[in-house]
């Protein structure tokens, strides 16, 4: 039995009301599907007395529509809904279909997935467990058990929609009591496992926008997990290629479940003009392996994950090129 600390659920009926509550109740946190924040609250990971529940905003924030050259996805779309309705972005639909298990996909939302807290074997544990180890940087402690002597938490971004949406060049619309801003998703994540987004405490992610041109990109999502259901990724990645007359025009590759920030693989511009074939897949695999260092933050052997990474990249790129 894992009881929750005392937290009061506030139930606003509009986005405006929700962000005012976030501003007026210091320490308040957003409760969307609750599939991440509730277990974390049970682990004693947050000092909060108020949860601002978004269920009442479903009508306002649950939509998939095309408008002004964007596919717009409301933050409260459920993961299950996107696995069916986001078929114009096949890599996103595929990633959603592989998140957690069926019940969690019905409960979990897109907004909650993008704002998922980072994960680590030393933090997603009960307070008692963590206390026995003297806690760690992310909460209640002063050192990191993953990087000895490390001053920065490297808990892993574990959201499966993030690499896809990064590879597809998505942006997010954020609303606060001060107004709204639209940010490219690549500027949304930070390299800090304690808080890995630029989201402010009174800000709500309300919409994801994917440029319509992403529909014509060759794309695929790849995930390594221990069981074919329920488990978080041990590695996840997405690739999106623009191909014309059999040649690569542009390519984006994003690898995650490694550190706090999903990694867009750098320096791929020179691949433009190469034939879109197995050799490009091989080259992307080589570069991804060079830039990504799996750590012990995820309870799956880092050596193995390091070896599997290029294989997963190669297979995912080949799948993208086939479809």
């Amino acid at each position, binding site marked *: *039995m*894992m*009881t*929750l*600390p*005392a*937290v*009061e*659920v506030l*139930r606003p009926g509009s986005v405006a009301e929700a962000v005012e509550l976030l501003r007026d109740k210091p320490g308040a946190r957003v*409760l969307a599907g*609750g*599939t991440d924040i*509730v*277990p974390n609250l*049970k682990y004693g990971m947050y000092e909060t*007395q*108020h*949860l601002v*529940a978004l*269920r*009442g905003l479903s009508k306002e924030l649950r939509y998939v529509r095309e408008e002004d050259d964007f596919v717009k996805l409301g933050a409260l779309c459920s993961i*299950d809904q996107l696995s069916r309705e986001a078929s114009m972005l096949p890599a996103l639909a595929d990633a959603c279909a592989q998140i*957690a*298990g*069926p*019940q*969690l996909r*019905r*409960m979990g939302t897109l907004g909650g997935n993008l704002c998922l807290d980072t994960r680590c074997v030393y933090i997603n544990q009960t307070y008692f467990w963590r206390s026995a180890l003297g806690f760690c940087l992310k909460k209640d402690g002063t050192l990191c058990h993953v990087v000895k002597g490390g001053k920065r938490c490297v808990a892993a971004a574990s959201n499966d929609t993030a690499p896809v949406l990064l590879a597809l060049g998505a942006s997010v619309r954020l609303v606060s009591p001060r107004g709204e801003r639209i940010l490219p998703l690549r500027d949304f994540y930070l390299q800090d496992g304690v808080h890995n987004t630029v989201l402010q405490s009174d800000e709500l992610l309300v919409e994801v926008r994917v440029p319509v041109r992403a529909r014509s990109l060759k794309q695929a999502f790849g995930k390594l997990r221990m069981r*074919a*259901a*329920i488990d978080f990724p041990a590695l996840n990645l997405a690739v999106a290629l623009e191909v014309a007359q059999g040649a690569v025009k542009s390519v984006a590759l994003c690898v995650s479940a490694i550190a706090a920030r999903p990694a867009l693989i750098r320096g791929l511009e020179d691949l433009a003009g190469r034939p879109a074939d197995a050799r490009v897949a091989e080259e992307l695999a080589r570069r991804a392996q060079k830039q990504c260092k799996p750590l012990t933050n995820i309870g799956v052997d880092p050596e193995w994950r390091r070896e599997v990474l290029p294989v997963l990249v190669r297979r995912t790129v080949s799948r993208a090129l086939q479809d």
Partner: protein
Amino acid sequence: MRKTELIKLFVNGEEHSLAVPVQRTLLEALRYDLGLIGSKQGCDKGDCGACTVLARPRQGSGRGEPILSCITLAADAQDLAVTTIEGLAGPQGLDVVQRAFVDCGALQCGFCQPGMMLSARALLDNCPKPSLPQIKEALSGNLCRCTGYSQIYQAVQVAAGMRKPSARAPVQAERAAPSDSVAHPVKEIVP
């Protein structure tokens, strides 16, 4: 901050008003406030599916979708209509899913069963003649430590009217003798 709160839950077709601690989960409210102990408390953190219930918006129709009550806050479930395993049987008795699980011997300890049967019910409500991969997918969020799943998949197919239970009847348990009439020969313990 308030410590307790008055909430309204709509469960198995009835509305209940409850005074609960603000942090009550739906599972705790079902089990400890409403006495509906059919929903099981397994991991209590979203991994195992033992606490699965069906839920839909109150205005909707049907039984809804499977969700995990251990990570749903009771206060946040007030707009939902919830069906638990206690609400699955109808006036005619057991639901076909429940009957099929019995007929196929699809349970051992039984701990996973309420969640398993509700996930199966939700599948059949949406898809009356599912394929085996669809059945496996629909039940993939319900862990069972005993059965090895194959009898469970079979039970869903039986419930869907797609096959008969396998010819071999479940083991016929012999009626046990009352324990006080069993002769326990006293063993001599040699010092």
